[in-house]
C-alpha cells in the first residue's frame, strides 16, 4: 500500500509577535515547524504503513528551506520525501497549490491513500486537501477522526461533524483530511534522526511536472491579495481585584445588560 502525506511548513504562530512601533509581524527568530495538523497525518500514515507493510511518502510544496520539514518527517519514520519547489510556484493560492500538488502526486505513481491535515495553521483555509482530491478525481472524506478498517479496497472511517460523527465508507484510492483526535504523533527516534540527515530528497520542479504553465503560481491563482493590514488590537476592559462578592455583582450586571 502506497500512502502519500501532504504537509506544509508554517511559521510557529505561537512565536509570531507584532512590533508595537511598526504594527507589523516580527519574523526574525520565528521558528518554522510542520503544520501541527499535518503531524497527525504523518502519524496516521506511519500507522497504515506499519499495519499494511506499505510505503509512506511525504510531499511538500514550498521554498527550498521547506526541506527541513521533510527531514523531520523522515526522522519520524517516513520512507521517502518529495520537495515540490520552483520559482514558478510563487504566489500560488489554494487553487494553484492543489493543482500543483495533484500534478506532483500523479508523477509519483500508484497510491491508495492521500492524507492531509485538516487545515494549515497559517492560512487556515482547509481548501487544499479537497482541491487535490478534486484535481485527481478521487473520493474524499474530510475531518477524519478514526480509520475504522481498510479491506478489499474499501475504507470505513469516522468523520467529525458539528454534532458528533458520521461513519463513512469509501473506495480506495481516496483522500482523507484528519483532525487532532485521530492519534498522538510519535517523537523521532535517534535512528530516524540519523537517517533523516543523509536521506535523499526528491526535487520536483515545474519542468518535471506534467502541467500547464499558466495554471501555476500567481498566474494560475484567481484570488489576489490587494491589501494587508494589522487588525485592531482588542483592548482589555476592567479587571476587578477586590472582594469576589463585589466583583461578581458587577459582572452579573454586565451580563444582564447583554442578555435580551
Amino acid at each position, binding site marked *: 500500500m502506497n500512502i502519500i502525506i501532504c504537509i506544509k511548513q508554517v511559521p510557529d504562530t505561537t512565536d509570531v509577535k507584532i512590533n508595537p512601533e511598526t504594527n507589523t509581524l516580527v519574523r526574525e527568530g520565528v521558528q518554522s515547524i510542520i503544520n501541527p*495538523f499535518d503531524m497527525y497525518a504523518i502519524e496516521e500514515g506511519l500507522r497504515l504503513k506499519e499495519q499494511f507493510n506499505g510505503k509512506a511518502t511525504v510531499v511538500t510544496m514550498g521554498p527550498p528551506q521547506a526541506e527541513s520539514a521533510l527531514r523531520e518527517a523522515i526522522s519520524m519514520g517516513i520512507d521517502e520525501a518529495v520537495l515540490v519547489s520552483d520559482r514558478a510556484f510563487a504566489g500560488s493560492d489554494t487553487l494553484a497549490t492543489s493543482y500543483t500538488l495533484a500534478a506532483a502526486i500523479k508523477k509519483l505513481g500508484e497510491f491508495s491513500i492521500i492524507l492531509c491535515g485538516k487545515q494549515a495553521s497559517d492560512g487556515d483555509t482547509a481548501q487544499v486537501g479537497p482541491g487535490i482530491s478534486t484535481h485527481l478525481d478521487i473520493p474524499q472524506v474530510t475531518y477524519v477522526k478514526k480509520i475504522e478498517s481498510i479491506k478489499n479496497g474499501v475504507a470505513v472511517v469516522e468523520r467529525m461533524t458539528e454534532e458528533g460523527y458520521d461513519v463513512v465508507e469509501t473506495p480506495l484510492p481516496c483522500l482523507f483530511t484528519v483532525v487532532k483526535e485521530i492519534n498522538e504523533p510519535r517523537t523521532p527516534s535517534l535512528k530516524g534522526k540519523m537517517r533523516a540527515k543523509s536521506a535523499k530528497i526528491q526535487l520536483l520542479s515545474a519542468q518535471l511536472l506534467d502541467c500547464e504553465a499558466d495554471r501555476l503560481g500567481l498566474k494560475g491563482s484567481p484570488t489576489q491579495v490587494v491589501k494587508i493590514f494589522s487588525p485592531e488590537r*482588542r483592548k482589555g476592559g476592567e479587571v476587578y481585584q477586590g472582594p469576589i462578592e463585589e466583583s461578581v455583582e458587577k459582572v452579573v450586571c454586565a451580563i444582564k445588560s447583554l442578555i435580551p
Partner: protein
Amino acid sequence: MSLIITKEKCVGCTLCVKVCPFGALYMENKKAVVRPEQCTLCGACIEACKFDAIEIKRETTAEADTEARGVWVFCEQKRGVVQSVSYELLGKGRELADKLGCELCGVLIGHDIGSKSSDIIHRGADTVYVVDHPQLKYFADDAYTAVLVRLVKKYKPEIILCGATSIGRSLISRVAVKIHTGLTADCTGLDIDAHKKILLQTRPAFGGNIMATIITPNHRPQMATVRHKVMKEAAHDPSRQGKIIKETFEDNVYSSRTKILDIIEDVSATINIAEADIIVSGGRGMKAPENFKIIEELATVLNGAVGASRAAVDSGWIPYSHQVGQTGKTVCPSIYIACGISGQIQHLVGMQSSKTIIAINNDPAAPIFQIASYGIVGDLFEVVPLLTKTLKEKLRK
C-alpha cells in the same frame, strides 16, 4: 510575474523591509532588494512604500464573465433543518445584492426540503433553487458537488457565499476547483468595491495577527466562506414573496462514491459550540474532570455551551469536540466566559472575536486579562458557583 523594485525611485528608507511578513526584502547599497524565493507577492510592501518604487507585474490571461449575475447563498440543511449560518449569510448577501442591484438567491439541496424554501425567501432571498432527491438526503461530497456545479454552470451567479462548516468547507472547495475559480475562506468582512463592482473579501491570517483583503478579479463566480456568528442573521419577514425554481438532473448526477453508514450524535456536546451564543470554558485551572460540573451549571443558567482550552482536553478532562483554539474550534459568541484559562495565543486565536469576554483567574498577570472586557481575579471555585447563584436569582426576575 514578479515583484519589481525601481532603483531610481527607492530612497533606501527600509520601510518595505520592515513590513514584509515573509522576510523577503533586504537592503543592499542602500536600496531595497527582493529575495524572489521568499516573496509570496502579497503586496504588503507596495502599500508601505511612500515613493511608488515597488510594483507587481501581473499578466492577466482570463477575463471575468461579465454576464454573471446574482448573489447566491448555499443554504446548508441537516435533517431538513436549514442551519443558522445560512440565515446569517442571507443577511450579508442581501446587502451585497442591493449594492450590486441584483437578485439574492438561495440554493437548497436535500430531500423533502421543499417546504423550507419559503423560510429562505422570508430571510431575504428573491429566488430559491431547490434540488430534491432521495440520494441527497444526507450530505455527500460527490453528489452535492455535482449538483451545485450544474446549477452554477446553468445560471452563472457572480458571487457564492457558503458557511465555513465541516460540510460547507468540504463541498465548496471542490466546487471552486471544478469551476476553476477563486475561493476565500473564513471571511470576516465582505463588501462591494463601488467602482469595480467586485467582491472585497477580508480575512485574518497568521492566527489573526494580520488581516488581508482578497479579490477574485477575473473569474466568476467569486466564492467565499464565512464562519458561524460572524455576520448578523437576516430578519424574518413572512410577507416577503419570491420565486422557487425546482431543478432536476440525470440520475448519475446524484451518485456518490462515498456512503454514509451511520450518523452518531455526541450527547455531551448537545449545544454545538460553533453556534452557541454564550460559551463558558474551563482550562488548566479546573484541576480535575469532575470540576467541570460548575462550568456546566453556569452554562445551563445562561443557556450556553461548554468549551475548554487545549490544556483541559489534553488532560482528558473533557472531549476534543469542546476544544476552543487553534487546534480546536474558532468561536464567536456574544459572551465568552473563560474560567481558569491563562490565555495562551493558541486559545486566544479561537475566541478573541467574541463580542464580550469575561475572564476568571487567580493570577492577575494572566494574559487573558489583557483582552477580557471584564476580569475577576479570584479563585474560580468560589467565583463560578457564586456567579451561577447570583445569575439564577437575577435572571429569574
